[in-house]
């Protein structure tokens, strides 16, 4: 099969998955038994007359049969009308897009950290299978997935911000994306919205430094969510590859282990880690809700958590749809990139 037809098939599949996702989200919003869908659109405690409620119900098409409501819903989504968020006091889609760069910066940093730590750890564990290093890596990764991330985040703040400060040692910031002073006296012009990128592009190194320091603790806490998964997949996949005949051939040619692992095995073994990147990102975006709340990081997840406290389910459901869409699209991009690199996966 050619690359083009593969791309076409995957795009068609993307449409179908997004259709399915929108159905699930619509069902959550309108089809829950015992829940009046109108409630999501009204601020709790706001007095409204029966007439006003009825007219709002008509206006939102909530008096129509469900299949028709779904058509209206999808049509509105496609027009960019995702509803209005009371929490953000602006339309849901605008509110999410405004906070997207902060979340992307955090999630990408966490992905980089967890792959930078997880891939070498997985390789070492595979090469030293069942020996001390392997056992150590497995113990650390089991301990890692057992940590409640929100708790770990608070403990990191306690140690690296408070205790280090008490001891007069250099501290790391515990809240927000940027130092208050530097944001006031030497602000950057937003271009991508990613502080690290924008500050480098405009040559503001002090801003870059502050943004980087603010990123350390939250991205480390978030990376722990995916670190164990990366290690486990990398270890299993490396063990699998090392059993292949071509590795045996390389061994019998007398190649040093280093060359065999780095040049022959790694390329094939790393595939599963890369192809699960989309799923990993989804898990991280879920974790971002929690981590952003702990660190007052002004991203989408933090906003969604505020929405929960305000009973703003239009916003929370909109966030879910947004994250699911991102995950589906990233999965597609990863698969397509892989199909370009490795012709074997086109089938």
């Amino acid at each position: 099969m050619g690359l083009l037809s593969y791309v076409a098939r995957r795009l068609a599949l993307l449409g179908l998955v997004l259709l399915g996702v929108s159905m699930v989200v619509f069902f959550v919003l309108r089809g829950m038994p015992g829940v009046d869908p109108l409630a999501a659109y009204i601020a709790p405690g706001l007095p409204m007359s029966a007439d006003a409620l009825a007219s709002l119900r008509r206006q939102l098409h909530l008096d129509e049969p469900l299949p028709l409501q779904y058509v209206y819903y999808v049509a509105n989504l496609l027009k960019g009308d995702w509803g209005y968020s009371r929490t953000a006091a602006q339309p849901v889609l605008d509110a999410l897009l405004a906070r997207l760069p902060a979340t992307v910066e955090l999630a990408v940093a966490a992905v980089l950290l967890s792959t930078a730590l997880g891939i070498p750890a997985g390789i070492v564990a595979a090469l030293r299978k069942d020996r001390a290093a392997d056992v150590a890596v497995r113990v650390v990764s089991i301990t890692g997935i057992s940590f409640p991330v929100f708790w770990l985040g608070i403990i990191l703040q306690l140690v690296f911000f408070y205790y280090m400060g008490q001891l007069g040692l250099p501290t790391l910031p515990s809240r927000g994306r940027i130092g208050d002073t530097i944001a006031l006296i030497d602000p950057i012009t937003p271009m991508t919205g990613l502080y690290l990128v924008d500050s480098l592009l405009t040559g503001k190194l002090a801003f870059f430094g502050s943004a980087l320091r603010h990123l350390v603790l939250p991205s480390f806490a978030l990376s722990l969510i995916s670190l164990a998964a990366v290690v486990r997949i990398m270890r299993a996949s490396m063990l699998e590859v090392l059993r292949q005949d071509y590795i045996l051939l390389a061994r019998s040619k007398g190649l040093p282990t280093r060359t065999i692992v780095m040049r022959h095995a790694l390329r094939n073994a790393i595939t599963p880690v890369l192809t699960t990147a989309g799923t990993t990102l989804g898990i991280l975006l879920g974790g971002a809700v929690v981590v952003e709340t702990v660190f007052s990081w002004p991203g989408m997840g933090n906003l969604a958590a505020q929405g929960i406290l305000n009973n703003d389910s239009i916003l929370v459901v909109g966030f879910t749809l947004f994250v699911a869409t991102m995950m589906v699209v990233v999965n597609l991009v990863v698969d397509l990139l892989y199909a370009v690199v490795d012709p074997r996966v086109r089938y």
Partner: protein
Amino acid sequence: MLGQLASIRRSTVATTGAALFVAIFVTGAVAPLVIPASVVRDVAFGARLLPPSARHWFGTDDFGRDLFSLVMLAANLDLRVALSVVLGALLVGTVLGAVAGLVNRLDEPIMRATDVFLSIPSLVLAMAIASVLGRSVQNLAIALVFVSWPIYCRLMRGQVLSEKQKPYVKSLRTLGVGPARMIFLHVVPNTLFPVIARAPADVGLILITMAALSYIGFGPGPYVPEWGSLVAAGQTYIFQAPWLVVFPGVAIFLTSLSLNLVGDWARDVFDPRLRS
């Protein structure tokens, strides 16, 4: 099967995990019987934020309540929710998965629905469902079942499909064993173990997810002890009274660690690829 189960003795780590979990489980079951309910209700502002001592092992919280009692009581709710969510998801998932594997006509629709559910991050979907249903622990549990069944469904279907191909099914059919008897007495029991092997680790995962969702606002409020909410309540006083965050967090960590240790062993034992 007995030989496989006996291998738990070979793994001291798994045994430690199992013992730890049993201890926590018993604590959770016994705590409400031993600790008087007044510990939760009675506010003593004179005893606010006391550090850990012989009288209050874990110190006291901002209401002056004994944190040790609260953490022990919370084990009850957290474990009850995590266990029932996984049980519910197992039930829904395995039934749907078995149906998909056995009834050709229903295979496509069930599996496509499963794919869609798996393409939405579960914590985020659970947030949406619990938020629409309204904030309460019960709704949180419902939401978590809603997002946890698909993985069991997919696993179960795969198991049933591969089991159907095995020679013993053909031989039994030749012997005149009917389809219902075949499914319930022969196919399903053989497929369940690898699916159930996932459960311990999943209980740990659900426990952490539940605590996290409770931390961000789905919690039951200050008068129902729950680990995630205790951490959230303690965060206000983190620099003043760090024990308020430390102890409930350690409780979550130890519980999920014990489940992951057992889960790791269960996966090794039941993973057909590692069994060879």
